[in-house]
């Protein structure tokens, strides 16, 4: 029995109803809203900030490669690169703070209490269910079970989320030490600057390497999503995809009858195109950086 919601999906609509878009036959009328405008904006800012930080930072880390010198010169010299790096860092902190602020708002608006937010079904915190799903996923990977029924946040998405927290804490604090060494050496020994350099540099390598390989694969390059998943950019995901990838969430929404409130008109074509272009650029930069890192670490290491 089709629900009222199902009737909204194009596939379920009567064939004599005119399709809104001629050439894009698959373009649905309405899509599930996974991310809010603010979350999408924060992710976009995060991309800009992260790519800028990675590019400018790695010129220093891999200063022994010709690439580094070229990129640095292209950016206008090490001082401009440093300026970009710090500006991007501020943006990153801004993203972080805004997200925290948003969490507070979210708690006030939707969850009323921290307890509800943190322990609710859509929590970002790892739960026993995540562990079960992880083990079930492992079984599925090795062909010993079906694909687990994931909820709103899968365990790898939660991992990515907290990796950013960890990264911001580690890279951010050491970065500030390197930014204001004179202030920090008022209460820390001078050699702490050296330690901060090592931590900052290696943690950054971990972050860039992880984001540009594992994260890229998990969300964009997975064969069924290839070449990219635009959900984080448009905020929308096809309902079918929600049903397929997040069945628990879908069922919960259907059960609570709130699904309809998450359905929206798709983004205008031009917005989607722009978003795709942006995403492509970001992906390409990310991949280039991975290639550069591999080259610098394996072939040009001094």
């Amino acid at each position, binding site marked *: 029995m089709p629900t009222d919601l199902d009737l909204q999906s194009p596939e379920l609509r009567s064939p004599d109803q005119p399709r809104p878009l001629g050439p894009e036959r698959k373009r649905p009328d309405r899509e599930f809203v996974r991310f809010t405008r603010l979350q999408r904006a924060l992710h976009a800012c995060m991309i800009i900030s992260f790519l800028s930080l990675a590019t400018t930072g790695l010129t220093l880390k891999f200063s022994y490669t010709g690439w580094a010198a070229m990129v640095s010169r292209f950016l206008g010299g090490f001082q401009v690169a440093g300026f970009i790096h710090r500006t991007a860092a501020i943006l990153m902190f801004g993203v972080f703070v805004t997200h925290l602020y948003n969490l507070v708002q979210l708690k006030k608006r939707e969850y009323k209490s921290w307890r509800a937010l943190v322990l609710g079904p859509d929590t970002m915190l790892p739960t026993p269910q995540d562990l079960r799903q992880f083990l079930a996923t492992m079984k*599925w990977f090795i062909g010993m079970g079906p694909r687990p029924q994931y909820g709103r946040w899968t365990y790898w998405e939660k991992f990515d989320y907290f990796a950013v927290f960890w990264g911001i804490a580690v890279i951010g604090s050491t970065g500030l030490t390197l930014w204001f060494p004179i202030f920090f050496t008022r209460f820390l020994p001078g050699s702490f600057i*050296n330690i901060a350099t*090592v931590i900052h540099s290696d943690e950054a390598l971990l972050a860039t390497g*992880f984001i540009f390989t594992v994260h890229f694969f*998990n969300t964009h390059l997975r*064969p069924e999503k290839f070449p990219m998943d635009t959900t984080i950019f448009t905020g929308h995901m096809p309902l079918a995809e929600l049903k397929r990838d997040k069945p628990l969430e879908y069922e919960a929404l259907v059960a609570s009858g709130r699904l309809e409130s998450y359905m929206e008109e798709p983004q205008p074509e031009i917005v989607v195109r722009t978003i795709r272009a942006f995403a492509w650029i970001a992906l390409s930069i990310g991949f280039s950086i991975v290639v550069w890192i591999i080259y610098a670490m394996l072939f040009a290491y001094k």
Partner: protein
Amino acid sequence: MFRRTTRNLFALANALTLLLAAGIIHAASPSPQSPSTDECLACHSDKTLTTKRGSRTVSLFVDGKRFSSSVHGSLSCTACHADLEGKDLPHSTPLARVECGTCHSDEQKQHSHSLHGRAIARGDTLAPHCVDCHGNHDIVPVTDRNSAVAPLKVPFVCGRCHQEGTPVQTNRQIDQHNILENYSESIHGEALLKKGLIVAANCVSCHTAHNILPHTDPNSSINRRNIAATCTKCHAEIEEVHRKTIRGELWEKEAHVLPACVDCHQPHKVRNVYYAQGMADADCMRCHANEHLKASDGRSMFVSAAEIAASRHAHPRTQAVPVSCSQCHSEVNVSRVRPCETITHPVDCSKCHEDQGQQYQRSKHGQLLAAKDPNAPSCRDCHGTHRVLDKRDPESRTFATRVPELCGSCHREGQKAAVRYVGTQHEIIRHYQESIHGKGLLKSGLTVTATCTNCHTAHMVLPKSDPQSTVNPKNVPATCGACHHGIEEQFEQSVHSRLVTKTDKDLPVCNDCHSAHTIRRTDETGFMLDIMDKCGRCHQEIAKTYFDTYHGKVSRLGYTKTAKCYDCHGAHDILPVADPRSHLSRANVVATCQKCHASATRRFAGYLTHATHHDPKKYPFLFWTFWGMTTLLVSTFVLGGMHTLLWLPRAFQMRRDLKAEEAREETARANGAGAEGKATAEEDHRAH
């Protein structure tokens, strides 16, 4: 037969021994009374006593009075006529020739080595013996004006043979002519003969009395080498008045390269006239002014008077009058019709430019010339010949701005000096021109800028390996310090100076950092970045660790606005950190950091500028931090990577399923399947 011969020889030897013994006994026995002077004079006071020698009748008269007042008056006749010793009178004739050398051994020796003595030995009947000049029984001291060899008489004694028409002058090889005549008219002859100045030079003053030798003999008093010494016996310090350019000692030491007195003041003809400077030049120019004059090998022998007049030698610094041809072409002989025909050596500039000459001989150029290398440059290859100019003359080939071009004519890549060169310096001239010195000299026209000769010297150019070379590492600081004195002072106090650090290792000198021919401005980016590699050539480890820090990384990216080696350690005044004067000593390090980090504190200065995470002993906290981070990194990647790899096959499977489903939908739609069928399919999917 053999035995008989032996016996006979033995008998003979016995007989000879006996005879010899008898002779000795005879000699030892008191000799018969030798004839006394009076006994001799008993016969020889007879003025008519004569004897025949060959076809000549010779008087045998001896004036007893004059003999007794002669220098030999106290001697007996037999003291000289030794062969009359113990003989009975009247003696047999002829007597042997008196040997004056029995007493006058030195004179005798000189005479027998002399031209005259050797002629006697040859059996030349014209050769004079002692008696021919000194007389025989009436010899008086030379100071006595009655002496046959008194100064006033000497010209005539010698002139007896050495004047026109005598057999000696006619039949023997004598280069000079009209000797006595010329002498009598010369300044010496006039003084002696007309003015009675017995100190004036006569024949023996120049030729000596007994040791007369041909001028070609190196021992002769009139040999070119000795003539100056001979003349200066009387004309002491004549060279001071004469040619101020020529050092007095040169005249005697290096006479072969100088015109000898007699080249101008001809022997025997020396006149009291003014020998105008340039007279010889005019003589030379009689031929050499001809533009078509060619040597036998085709070289032009034309000499441009205008060139010479414009040259440095036309108005030399050290003499009032121009340098004349013969001062350089010194072997000319004005007594010849072609004075230059006696020239056998090329011009030797060192007879005036002595120091430069000695330097040149010591130099690589000079060594090559001595080895007869055809590529060897001599004075004239750089300075030119007749048109030699002062190095301060902008027209001169040795003027500062033209020196690189001049040296480049051989040392430019592909030229003869560069071709044989095996060292590391290449494109010397081009590099120099692009260097700060080259630009200063050639672009800014600063003639005080260092050019080739400032570092390599002009005349004592030696390869770097020669310890005497100005570009030998040992001497480089002093060489550069000639201009950069302040830097040299700093450098010589630094740890890099040989004066401070005693080591067998090679210490760096100026050119190790600044290079030799490609010296750049030190505020040029390229130089500032290169310098780190220069330090790193010796300080390998410490340079490597520098590149592990922020400063090093920024430098490596090609930017200079960050601390480089010399910003902290100093450039020329580098000292060990332990030295209190070091920029990095405890007292100075904060100020050094403050050069860039204005508000740096002591704790800030604790930043490890050469820290590396590869050294667990020296920097354990860095080492363990690094490995901790690396472990985190590797494990994260391993987990993430494995997760992804395991996922991949499932993800492909899902993609295939999705495609298949889409295809099914397509087919269903194409077959005109209604919404119902579609919905059913969808429901089926959902039911899964």
